[in-house]
C-alpha cells in the first residue's frame, strides 16, 4: 500500500526498455550489398575509372572462371586442393585438440609443451619451405605438412584455453558429487571447452586456406593455390581474382559447415 502513488499524482507508464543490441543477419541486405559492390566495380571498370592493371572487371573474372569450368580444369585444381586441405586440416585439428587437451589437463604436458607451442606458433611456415622440401620432399607430404602445421598450433591454443576457461564451480560440484576423473572430463570439461575448440577450428580452417597457396608453392602443377601463383607470375589478374574468388567461396563453405556444427553441438547452451 505504501508503494501506491499518492491520489491525484499522474501515473507514468514505464515502457519496456530491454531488447536491442542484438544485430541479426539479413540475407537480403547482404546479397544486395554484395551485388551492388560488384555492379559498381563493373561500372568503374567499363568507365575506365578502374585501371585494367589495378583490377580486372568482374565480367573478365567470370570469363576466367567459365574457362576453368569449360576446360575441366576447375575440378582438377579443386580436387587436389580439397584433398590437401582436408587431410592437412583434419590431421592438424585432431592432433591440435589432443595436444591442447594434454596441456589443459596435465601439469607435465603443460610444462613441457606450452612454451614450445607458443614459440613454434610464431614461426612463419612459409619461411621454412626450403626445409620442408628437404624434410618432406616435393610430393604431397610437404604440402599436407604445411597445412597441418598451420592448423595445428591455433587449435592447440584454442583447446587448452577452452579447457582453462571451463567453469571451476561445475568441476568442484562434480567432484563433490563424487564423479570420476574420466567422467568429469567427458561430461564437463569437453562440453565446456567445445565452444572455444569450435571457434579455434573456424580460425584454423581459414589459416589452412591461406596456407594452401603457400603449400602449393612447392612443385605443384595443379591446385587452386598453384593456379593463383601461376596467374600472379604471368600477371593474368583476371585468373588471379578468379582463383581468389574460389578460395573465398571455399572459406564461406567451411565456415557454414562449422556454423552448422556449432548449432548441433552447442545447443545445450541455450
Amino acid at each position: 500500500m505504501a508503494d501506491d502513488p499518492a491520489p491525484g499524482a499522474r501515473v507514468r507508464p514505464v515502457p519496456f526498455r530491454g531488447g536491442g543490441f542484438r544485430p541479426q543477419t539479413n540475407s537480403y541486405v547482404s546479397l544486395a550489398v554484395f551485388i551492388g559492390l560488384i555492379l559498381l566495380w563493373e561500372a568503374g571498370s567499363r568507365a575506365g575509372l578502374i585501371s585494367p592493371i589495378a583490377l580486372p572487371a568482374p565480367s573478365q573474372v567470370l570469363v576466367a572462371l567459365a574457362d576453368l569450368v569449360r576446360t575441366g580444369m576447375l575440378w582438377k585444381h579443386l580436387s587436389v586442393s580439397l584433398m590437401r586441405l582436408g587431410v592437412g586440416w583434419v590431421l592438424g585439428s585432431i592432433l591440435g585438440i589432443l595436444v591442447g587437451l594434454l596441456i589443459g589437463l596435465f601439469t607435465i604436458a603443460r610444462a613441457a609443451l606450452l612454451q614450445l607451442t607458443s614459440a613454434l606458433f610464431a614461426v612463419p611456415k612459409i619461411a621454412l619451405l626450403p626445409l620442408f622440401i628437404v624434410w618432406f620432399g616435393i610430393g604431397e607430404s610437404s604440402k599436407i605438412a604445411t597445412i597441418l602445421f598451420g592448423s595445428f598450433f591455433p587449435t592447440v591454443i584454442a583447446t587448452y584455453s577452452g579447457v582453462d576457461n571451463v567453469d571451476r564451480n561445475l568441476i568442484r560440484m562434480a567432484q563433490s558429487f563424487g564423479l570420476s576423473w574420466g567422467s568429469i572430463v567427458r561430461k564437463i570439461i569437453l562440453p565446456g571447452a567445445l565452444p572455444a575448440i569450435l571457434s579455434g577450428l573456424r580460425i584454423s580452417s581459414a589459416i589452412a586456406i591461406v596456407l594452401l597457396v603457400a603449400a602449393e608453392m612447392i612443385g605443384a602443377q595443379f591446385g587452386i593455390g598453384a593456379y593463383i601463383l601461376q596467374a600472379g607470375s604471368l600477371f593474368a589478374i583476371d585468373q588471379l581474382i578468379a582463383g581468389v574468388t574460389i578460395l573465398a567461396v571455399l572459406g564461406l563453405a567451411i565456415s557454414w559447415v562449422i556454423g552448422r556444427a556449432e548449432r548441433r553441438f552447442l545447443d545445450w547452451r541455450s
Partner: protein
Amino acid sequence: MALTRRHFATGAAAGATFGIVRNARAASEPVRIGILPLVSHAPTIIAQAKGYFAAQGLAARLVTFQAAEPMAVGIASGDIDFGVTAITGGLVSLADKGAVKVIGGSLAEASGVEGQKVLASNAAYAKGLTSLAGLKGRSFAVTTAGSSFEYVAYKAAQKAGFPASDIVLRPLQTIPACIAALKTGQVDAWEMLPSVADPLVAAKVAHAIATVQDFIPGYQVTTVFTSTANINKRREVVQRFLAGLAKGIDDYDAALVTRTMAPKEIDAIVAAVHKYVFAAMPLAKARAHITHGVMRINTGAALNVASVADQLQWLNARKLVPAGSTMQKLVDTSFVKTI
C-alpha cells in the same frame, strides 16, 4: 591508391614541363630505380655510387626488391621508373596491357665469358643424366611457369632433339627452394647463373652437364625496362638514365668481367656493390661471392632483339601470355643499339 598516385605524378610532371625545370638541365629530375640484390644489378649500383646518374641531372633513388615480379608491377603502377628483369610471362603480359616496355639489354650470354649452366642432381647424374639428351623424361626445377628457367629447359630439349613436354617441370617459386630440391635429388635438373651454380658444383652437391651459351648463343637473359608513360612523357629522362647506366656498365665490365681496372678501383667498386649485394656478409667474405662468375652485361645496354623475339615466340607458343603479344608492344628499340 595507385590511380591517385599516378594522377598526382602526371600532374607533377606536367607542372615540371611548364616551369623552370625545363631549361635547367642541371636541376635534378627524381627517378626511382628498382634493383634486386644480385651482382647482375651492379651497373645500376655503380652508376649511383659514382654519381653517373647525378651527372645526367637525375636524382636517382635505388629501391631494393626481393623478386623481379613485384618490381615489374611497381613500374607498371608508376611507383618505380626503371628496372631490370628477365623476359617473363608477367613482363610480356604487362607490356601487352600497355604498361611497360623493354628499352635495353642487360645480362647476356657471351662466348669467352663464363655463363649459366645446366645442373644435374648427384642422384640423376649417377643414373646417366650427363648431357642434355638425358633430360628427356626427367624433372627440371623452375621458379614459375613462363620464367627464364623454363625457357632454358625448352631450348635444351630443342637442342637435344626431343619435345619440351618430355621434361617434367617442377615450379618451386624461389631460388632457395630450387637449390634445396636439387641438393636432395628431388628434382633431376636445374639451370642457374655461375655465381650460384659453381659453388654447388664445387661442394659436390650437383654436376654441371652443359653450358647454356652452347645451346642459346647470345641469350639476352635480362633486359632494362620502364613504364610506357615514361617513354611517352619523359623521353629525355629515359635517355639520360640509359646514358648513366651505360657508364655504370663500362665500370662493371672493367672491374668485374675483364678486370682491366686498377686493383684499387676494383676494390672501390666491390665495396659499393657490397652495400646492396651480400650485404649481410662482411666485405672480405662477400668479395669472393661478388667477383666470382660474373656474366657480361651488354655495352651501352645494347639489346639482342633476335633473342628477345625468340623468347616471346616461345611464350606465345606456350600460351603463357595474352594472345597476340607482339614485339611492337614489348620492345622500344629507339633508345639503344640493337644486336
